[in-house]
């Protein structure tokens, strides 16, 4: 039981980082990306390759994963600078679909659908950190660091600039904000953080393949942020806990026939998304609606 809880907690922490990084885009910068799993995947592949080819050092791998995801996030920044709203959603969708094809075709780097097997156990500065409890602690520390960075940044001029753009791009421009630079920075930062989450994910699962980085995953993360509450520090974490624990909790219910469990999970998950948007659109942890 302990092992199971540790497992859930580790996954929840990793998804917490992922959701917090997406919140930076959706919540603070108003960039509604549904391609976040792409950067999660880029980080995972980069971290896994580094660990398999050079050293399984978590710090180095996180750096590599963050760098790769951050650098390639310019693919997302480009449309973000040109279009907004529905157009950007569609652009990120296009990016997501192309990336999945690339992931499954670039056998040399990603292993295709077969994925990368045999990712070595993680170490940190020479210490073995692969024990489940230790790894959970490391993930929690990373999450805390990320949240701290987001909090500091959002309190500063960068954050205020971003939120000004989110609320009215033209007004922000009129006040002399460099819209292009701020937006690009937000995208790079958010995607680099997603890359770090990907590295942790790769080490934790010891196996990655393209199926973890599909549109469904992007949608799941997006739902976590939205359901939890955008533009709050705690919101994405609430969303993660809810959406990860919902299926886990459901499978404890004895009266659902085991063969229908999957469909029932999906049904509740879908209905919950719709109902929440009707009755609490700011998310569970969000402030009351109406102002914004």
């Amino acid at each position, binding site marked *: *039981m302990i092992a199971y809880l540790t*497992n859930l907690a580790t*996954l929840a922490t990793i998804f917490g980082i992922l959701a917090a990084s997406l919140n930076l885009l959706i919540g603070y910068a108003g960039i509604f990306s549904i391609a976040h799993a792409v950067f999660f995947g880029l980080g995972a592949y980069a971290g896994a390759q580094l660990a398999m080819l050079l050293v399984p050092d978590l710090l180095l791998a996180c750096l590599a994963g963050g760098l790769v995801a951050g650098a390639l996030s310019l693919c997302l920044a480009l449309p973000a600078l040109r279009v907004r709203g529905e157009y950007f959603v569609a652009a990120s969708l296009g990016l997501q679909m192309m990336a999945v094809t690339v992931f*499954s075709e670039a056998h040399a780097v990603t292993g295709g659908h077969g994925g990368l097997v045999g990712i070595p156990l993680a170490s940190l500065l020479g210490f073995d950190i692969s024990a489940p409890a230790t790894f959970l602690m490391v993930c929690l520390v990373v999450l805390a660091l990320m949240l701290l960075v987001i909090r500091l940044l959002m309190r500063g001029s960068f954050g205020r600039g971003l939120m000004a753009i989110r609320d009215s791009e033209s007004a922000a421009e009129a006040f002399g904000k460099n819209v292009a630079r701020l937006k690009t920075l937000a995208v790079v930062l958010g995607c680099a953080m997603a890359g770090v989450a990907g590295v942790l994910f790769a080490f934790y*699962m010891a*196996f990655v*393949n393209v199926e973890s980085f599909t549109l469904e995953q992007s949608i799941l993360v997006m739902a976590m942020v939205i359901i939890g509450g955008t533009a709050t520090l705690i919101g994405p974490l609430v969303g993660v806990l809810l959406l990860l624990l919902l299926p886990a909790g459901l499978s404890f219910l004895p009266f659902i026939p085991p063969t*229908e469990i999957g*469909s029932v*999970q999906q049904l509740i998950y879908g209905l919950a998304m719709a109902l929440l948007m009707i009755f609490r659109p700011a998310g569970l942890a969000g402030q009351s609606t109406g102002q914004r």
Partner: protein
Amino acid sequence: MLQRRIFLLATAAGLAAPGILRAQGSPYVVGTLFPMSGPNAEYGMLFTNAVQLAFEHIKADGMLKRPIDLRAQDSLATPQGGAVGMQKLASVDGAPYVMLGFTGVSKAAAPIGTRSKVMMVNGGGVGPDLAGLSPYFWNVIPLVNQEVKALLPWLQQKSLKRVALIYVDDPLGNSVLEQLRKGLPGVGGELVDTYSVPPAAQQFAAVAAKVRSANPDAVYFASYGAQQSQIIKQLRDNGIRQQLLTYSAGSIPSVLSLPESEGLVYTSQAADWSSAQDPVTQRFVKDWRAKYNSDPSIYHQNYYNAMRLFGLLAQELEKAGTPVNGENLLQTLLKVRQFTFVGGEGTFQDNGTLELPMQINQIHDGRAQKIA
């Protein structure tokens, strides 16, 4: 009385971890990790039905002293679903024995199961990299390279020389590609063209047009699940009249019942229901027909065998008075090696696969017939 003795033995041996201790007084927990939702859920249903039948037989025979408690987890047919589900089966349910399927799921679940010393048995995934995945990972299904090899002589005999291949670009598809590329020249054939498709692709009219312009003697497709029916139907609809070939994934009901599947040839492990002599096979076929009013497929056979394997292993352990946990199940399997299964005697190889005789089937009027 007897139960208490086993309990005492276990504690005396100092082996009993908390999970095992709890298991002593309660039923044996056996896990299944199949896709129960999503596009591959049809397989989950197939696998579960087969496990159920074996479960009923074990119960009816009084094979084990204690009841079995089946716990199902949805693998979603994805690695992540596999990892999470396996973790839950291993540590919450405390299952010492888990049946699973699908190559990606198996590869993600194997390290977790190995860590928790859970015996894992695959009867559905045929990716070649499932051989030797972990000492705790066993296949009760011949892997796909064996299947392609079995088909080659038949192709030569029917003088189907020019073969085109449509394959899903994953380890399974790539293995078929490699086997055909290597094997066809040896039987006087050639691989004239290959088309790799994504696992979620649904439109094959364009592929059909390309196949037609390559003009092969036969078309092999290596896919699984719902996509197979779409490939077959769209090839036929678009005027491909050539012989269609595939491997054991083609034996699912949705393919069999598709009118366009008429004449499709697929390989599978030997499963000749009509002339089976041994009582295990006869009973399986009889009860299956009575329960589901149709012939069992090889997946039914494999997962019946997988569940039966647990019964046989646990029976041995009960006889010896040792606790039923993953480690002991594995030791027993390594010791016994050969088991009486549906379809005949099966012997486990060192790389974790089961060597079984193969056969070639053709679909005729919605039923599979053995042709070689």
